[in-house]
């Protein structure tokens, strides 16, 4: 895969962000963000806390509204109205806190959206849900409730739930940050196997090993801006900006 964002002009990007600005009252959360995401691309977004990484991906499915600029997903402008239903059906999301539905079994958690949103018959949706749960290694837990599962298992259910809608794009908002260390690996493994299937992924993460191993492109953000982006090996081994260099050396020493 090509890793130079400038060379993507030939294929139409699945996500385009143009001059995106986001203000919270007097906090400038996103500053002039421009980003093209190609179909099937896996992007890791890194940077210090509060740098706008989560805000950026949350704007893509309009969990946050932008102050100005434009975001287009698969040809549809992200805005209130008809497009929003389209965009949300195409874009799945996995949250730091899992956000599984606690009053539903694992199977129901995965099957409910296809049934309610896509109108797929229950039996068919549940059959597909079982396949997805098998794929994330949770066949034995379909009838349990979320609070009976470990954090790593819950997050894998959340991934299966997002996949059930067959999204073109998956957003991951620090998917391993709330996990005990011994459970991070199982979730990253599932994400890595997903990346190989060709689904487009934007992953906000602090897992630099994962970013280096799996991402096609790494985007470094600070203070609401994209400071630097490039292929993982380039960005990690040879950062071009002082800020990226400072951030990377800080976290490497932290390890």
């Amino acid at each position, binding site marked *: 895969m090509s890793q130079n964002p400038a060379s993507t002009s030939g294929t139409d990007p699945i996500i385009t962000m143009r001059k995106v600005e986001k203000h919270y009252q007097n906090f400038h959360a996103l500053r002039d963000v421009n980003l093209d995401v190609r179909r099937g691309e896996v992007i890791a977004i890194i940077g210090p806390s509060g740098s706008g990484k989560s805000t950026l991906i949350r704007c893509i499915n309009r969990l946050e509204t932008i102050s100005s600029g434009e975001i287009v997903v698969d040809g549809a402008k992200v805005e209130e109205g008809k497009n929003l239903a389209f965009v*949300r059906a195409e874009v799945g999301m996995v949250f730091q806190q899992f956000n599984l539905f606690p009053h539903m079994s694992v199977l129901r958690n995965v099957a409910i959206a296809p049934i309610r949103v896509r109108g797929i018959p229950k039996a068919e949706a549940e059959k597909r849900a079982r396949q997805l749960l098998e794929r994330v290694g949770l066949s034995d837990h379909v009838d349990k409730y979320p609070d009976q599962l470990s954090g790593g298992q819950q997050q894998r259910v959340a991934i299966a739930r997002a996949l059930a809608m067959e999204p073109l794009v998956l957003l991951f908002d620090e998917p391993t940050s709330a996990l005990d260390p011994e459970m991070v690996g199982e979730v990253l493994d599932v994400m890595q196997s997903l990346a190989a299937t060709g689904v487009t992924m934007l992953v906000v993460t602090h897992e630099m090993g994962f970013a280096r191993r799996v991402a096609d492109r790494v985007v470094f953000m600070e203070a609401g801006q994209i400071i630097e982006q490039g292929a993982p090996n380039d960005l990690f081994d040879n950062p071009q900006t002082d800020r990226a260099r400072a951030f990377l050396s800080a976290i490497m020493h932290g390890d």
Partner: protein
Amino acid sequence: MDLITTFFNIDVLRQAAPLLLRGFWLTILLGLTSLVISLSLGLVVVLIRLYAPKPIRFLAIAYIDLFRALPLLVLLILVYYALPFVGIRLSSFWAATAALSLVASAYMAETFRAGIEAVPRGQFEAAQTLGFSWPRMMADIILPQAMRLVVPPTTGVSIGLIKDTALASVVAMPDLLKQATQTQAFYANPSPLVGAALLYLILLLPLVRLVSVLEARQKRSR
């Protein structure tokens, strides 16, 4: 006169029993009707209160405040004795149902609001992200969780409502209390009043106990 023949006069009770039971039945009917209406109305009001556009939202707030501030007895008398002046004439049953439902729905709405606001924001976001429409999100994801949280306080409000049905006797509705006071006057013996009190207890004590059990269970599951 000994205590038994004064307050637990079997003969009087036996003769009063058919009337008391008829009153008891009417009390239950009034309570259930008002309960169903106030639960539905409370749900509608809280959804408007939380999610309608601003001007309409203020109407819901005004509704909730008004009916929580107005004494039920005053409202009941207004509905029964004042509305006929503008051509609205309700039977004593429906006047009582209207007053009880209006007041209880305001309390129900506030109870439901606490439940809905206790559902974490992540639940709304997860549902939205999966493409749920707003009504589907509320019906499938948010309300089931919110309602589970508010079962004990909602049962508490329901108990209050059933107790308040006794006020209907004021507008000449032959409910349990009215039957009891009438038979007491007829037999010149207070036993029917004691009988009525016992019937109220039979109806409400289990519910009061239920609230405590539910609250304890909820505390444990946290």
